[in-house]
């Protein structure tokens, strides 16, 4: 049992944990930050995704002892960070997931939103292919992904000050690329 010095969601924390504990175990079972989910626990599902110095990594395959001194952001840190930066309420990605119904059971959602947040921090105007690639390490077994991609697009449109045309996010895209989504909406109504 050693004492780890961790920076979690902006807080400097000292926490006692055995050397063989993963970051995910420390987050969930020492710090009570259960928003990071324990899914496959072996790197297949992405449910435990957290941001390490702003980049998405899997907490289930990261030894807590190896991330001392680095910045860890979990899903619990998104809203406070947004508010601290002058925003109101939840992070726009969280808000968009809420409004688009981009979840069913919610188990993958923390990881999905953190992967999306990392993408938008790196590239505020990603292409559809870049969005899909950024989320490709996060598995969802409920939604079929459509609403998740819509939510990310909604967050992108709103951050860019583009107002999606009424309900346009339901057609999987925003106003200025609406044509590309016509077939999507057709399939959904069929």
């Amino acid at each position, binding site marked *: 049992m050693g004492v780890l010095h961790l920076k979690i969601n902006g807080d400097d924390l000292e926490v006692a944990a055995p050397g063989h504990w993963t970051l995910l175990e420390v987050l969930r079972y020492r710090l009570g930050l259960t928003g990071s989910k324990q899914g496959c626990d072996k790197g297949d599902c*992405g449910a435990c995704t957290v941001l390490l110095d702003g980049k998405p990594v899997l907490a289930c395959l990261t030894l807590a002892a190896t991330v001392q001194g680095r910045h860890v952001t979990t899903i619990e840190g998104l809203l406070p960070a947004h508010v601290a930066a002058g925003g109101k309420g939840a992070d726009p990605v969280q808000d968009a997931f809420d409004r688009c119904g981009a979840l069913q059971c919610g188990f993958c959602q923390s990881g999905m939103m953190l992967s999306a947040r990392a993408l938008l921090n790196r590239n505020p105007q990603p292409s559809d292919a870049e969005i899909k690639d950024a989320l490709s390490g996060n598995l969802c077994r409920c939604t079929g992904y459509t609403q998740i991609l819509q939510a990310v697009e909604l967050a992108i449109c709103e951050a860019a000050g583009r107002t999606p045309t009424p309900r346009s996010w339901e057609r999987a895209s925003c106003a200025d690329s609406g044509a590309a989504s016509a077939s999507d909406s057709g399939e959904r109504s069929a």
Partner: protein
Amino acid sequence: MLRLPKFEVATPKSVGEAIALLAEAGPSAVVLAGGTDLLPNLKHELATPELVVSLGAIRELAGIRLADDGTLAIGAMTTLETVASSELVRARAPALAQAASLVAGPQLRTMGTLGGNVLLDTRCQWINQSYFWRSALGFCLKKDGTKCHVVEGGKKCVAAASNDTAPALMTLGASLALEGPSGKRSVALDDFWVADGIYNKKLAHAELLVEVRIPPLPQGHRGAYGKLRERASIDFPLLGIAARLDVGTDQRVAHADVVVTALAAQPRRVKLVAETLRGVPIDEHELAHAENATLETSAFGRAVRSIAELAEKQCHPLPNVPGDADWRQAMVPVFVRRTLLAAARRAGPVHAD
């Protein structure tokens, strides 16, 4: 929930310190790079070390540099994401950048390192399972057992080399800079492998991979990587194909190479590729505009097709990784052809979505 077995963690700050720790601890110590393969294997109790030596804090091991003589040197702890997105690597060694870009998903590429991928342990659907799962079958040759579930009566482990970057580096003529208790040495990647799935590399305990070195490549160098896998992300290769094509100033092929992985314990070079392609003219206009099917009427297209046939005869996928072995065999010529054409077109990577 998969718990790790108990161990201590050391985070040395230098290569020398890491080697000393490993040498002192002996076989009860293992090396941790990105952890994306080691930690699942430890969770599955494929090893139960007392000490895990993390290389994450050794700054000298990460980074990409171009040496004065044109050698591209990539530190072993450089992440796969960094390798895949490096302009230097993309321009000089396209097959390597493409291979790195197709390893697993974004999170695993952020964590995983080039050194870890090159030294990746062999994989098999009968070994990369939990202790409980393996115990139900009486274990296997690679760990704790005496029976091979892949080859009936087999006495030699045929777990598959599954490192995407290794075949790409082999086409590039790369060498490995190693450092251990008895000093430094350099070994050509071609001479690094052993045909034994239990441990497929000539790397001694306490010896570390410090740097991967790619020699200067000719102006007309082209390369690509093709990967067959179950899903478009996360998965290990069911087949990995690296292709190299050096085109001379006379617009003819000066050198060519194809290396295939995910067959057995080591990546396999397809024989007679350079001999078949050398001197064959490259028609850039045709490459840019012709469909793959019509290309086969050109000299280059015919040569590519005969290499695809050679590869099909020389490569024999085993039921060691997921995916039907007959299907993987049928995909050998398809992916060899597509990857060679992608290299010629300066395109790629080749993969099915």
